[in-house]
């Protein structure tokens, strides 16, 4: 072994260690931020290691440097700008977009190597080695393409650019996807057999497969899909590692792939959904429109913002249940103003965070943190549930399915078994909502019919603004 090889070996080893520590640290609140920086450092270290290796062995031509610099600057610049500019509410689609681009990168590497074999690595290949090469190229293209198109579709759906076409909810979609999958397999084996022209077929059908699989999936399940696609992009990276013969790529890709799978599983549990039903079940609302859960509301009480303010003023303990609607209305800052006033009046305020509140697990914590809500006030479901009976007022803001008592009481309900917040135990519940439309699941919410529940109709932000005005008139929060 010569010096450049040893140096690269040591750097790679160090990078893998730091990446593993980074992923580990990211799963703890205290260490998360440092861990993220550690992982970023490990990634830059790996680039330095690779470049120094080539400088010490084959050398890097000026021409190569130029293209490296062009690609790096453009990619980093756009990435950094988007990361700085994007509002916190659009986090899920942003992650999806980044993820898709990672998949695209693996796809392009494999395509490049397939069309123009890299001279040094493909000389004197025996049959076994060239077979491995073909297989890893095919896997990289297949997974990379699915990751790319799947992520882009996920992003477009979350942005509202794409709706769920009707046919994708029928059985037709299974047929279509099976056709794509079989076509991919044929192209895959054809490619391994040495028919290099089928590479384009593989690119096209696996791209279509990515679209076909993601398109039918409903908005509520999207986070799970993004997490799964994230795992795929790790697998794509590992496959690209086989293509260019890099252990570091294989380890890092495998780590992300496996960790992504676990995270996907954890998310599914939090939503009471199985991975299989997310992937093949279509959107939840389409399944349930015919089954139980639909039904008329019989006992809706609606009330004005003024009444709501009066009740809040008299309360000792208030629990806020924020949900998707709050995120959409971007009302987290307005909410914070309301709770500040209540706190100034000596009212105890707590936020009950359901594991899947917001648009992605953990998303609500990020949004409320952005609005300067103290971390101690954010209570997780298991912690806060015993507190509801001793609570005077619960404010439900844009949450729906996560406060549906059906999940506990009605074994025929599709929601049955999902962990929910027991808001109905509180003395008074105010639900701030635009109208009587159903939540993600499309299921009637029994909470709205309960005698201690009052609906305050309106846009979350507007209602909260009015609430601030009413509270001011009542002299709440003014010292």
């Amino acid at each position, binding site marked *: 072994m010569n010096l450049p090889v040893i140096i690269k070996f040591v750097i790679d080893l160090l990078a893998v260690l730091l990446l593993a520590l980074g992923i580990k640290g990211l799963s703890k609140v205290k260490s998360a931020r440092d861990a993220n920086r550690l992982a970023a450092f490990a990634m830059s270290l790996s680039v330095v290691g690779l470049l120094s290796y080539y400088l010490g062995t084959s050398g890097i031509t000026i021409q190569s440097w130029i293209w490296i610099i062009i*690609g790096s600057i453009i990619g980093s610049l*756009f990435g950094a700008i988007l990361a700085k500019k994007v509002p916190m509410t659009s986090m899920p689609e942003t992650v999806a977009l980044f993820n898709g681009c*990672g998949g*695209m990168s693996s796809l392009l590497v494999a395509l490049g190597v397939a069309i123009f074999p890299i001279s040094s690595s493909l000389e004197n290949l025996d049959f076994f080695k060239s077979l491995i090469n073909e297989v890893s190229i095919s896997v990289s293209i297949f997974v990379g393409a699915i990751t790319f198109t799947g992520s882009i579709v996920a992003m477009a759906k979350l942005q509202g650019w794409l709706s769920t076409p009707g046919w994708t909810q029928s059985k037709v979609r299974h047929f279509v996807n099976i056709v794509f999958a079989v076509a991919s397999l044929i192209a895959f084996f054809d490619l391994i057999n040495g028919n290099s022209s089928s590479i384009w077929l593989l690119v096209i059908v696996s791209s279509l497969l990515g679209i076909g699989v993601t398109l039918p999936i409903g908005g509520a399940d999207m986070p799970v899909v993004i997490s799964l696609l994230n795992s795929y992009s790790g697998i794509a990276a590992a496959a690209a590692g086989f293509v260019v013969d890099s252990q570091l790529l294989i380890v890092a890709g495998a780590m992300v792939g496996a960790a992504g799978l676990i995270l996907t599983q954890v998310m599914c549990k939090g939503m009471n959904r199985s991975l299989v039903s997310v992937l093949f079940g279509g959107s939840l609302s389409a399944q349930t429109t015919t089954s139980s859960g639909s039904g008329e509301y019989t006992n809706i009480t609606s009330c004005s913002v003024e009444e709501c303010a009066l009740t809040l003023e008299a309360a000792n303990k208030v629990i806020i249940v924020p949900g998707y609607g709050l995120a959409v209305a971007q009302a987290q800052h307005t909410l914070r103003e309301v709770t500040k006033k209540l706190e100034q009046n000596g009212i105890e305020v707590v936020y009950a965070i359901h594991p899947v509140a917001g648009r992605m697990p953990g998303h609500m914590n990020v949004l409320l*943190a952005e609005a300067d809500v103290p971390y101690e006030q954010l209570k997780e479901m298991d912690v806060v549930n015993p507190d509801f009976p001793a609570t005077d007022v619960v404010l439900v803001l844009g949450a729906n399915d996560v406060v549906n008592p059906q999940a506990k009481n009605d074994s025929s309900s599709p929601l049955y078994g999902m962990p929910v917040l027991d808001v109905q135990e509180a003395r008074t519940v105010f639900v701030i909502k635009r109208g009587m439309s159903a939540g993600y699941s499309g299921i009637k919410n029994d909470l709205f019919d309960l005698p201690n529940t009052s609906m305050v109709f309106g846009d979350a932000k507007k209602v909260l603004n009015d609430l601030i005005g009413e509270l001011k008139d009542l002299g709440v929060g003014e010292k």
Partner: protein
Amino acid sequence: MSFISLLWVLLLGSLLGLELIGKVPPTLHTPLMSGANAISGITMLAALTLIVKAEGNLALLIIGSVSLGFALFNVVGGFFVTDRMLAMFSRKPSNKK
């Protein structure tokens, strides 16, 4: 590297990944996902290899450069956005006092 040892690397890497994440508080699901996502942009190394070994083949240089751009978009954006999210969590203790 022989193929067999690369397979070992794949196996051990996967096992490591399975072990790394045990209990994750829901708070961290989004940041963890986006952080892991940034790491999957490690394909930038493959793109770099492609460019270095292109030996003047313009098409290969361009493919490698575009691939590098996509990967770095993933990496840089991913880490920045994760940091932005996590910064909001760590800011709080100082606010309290």
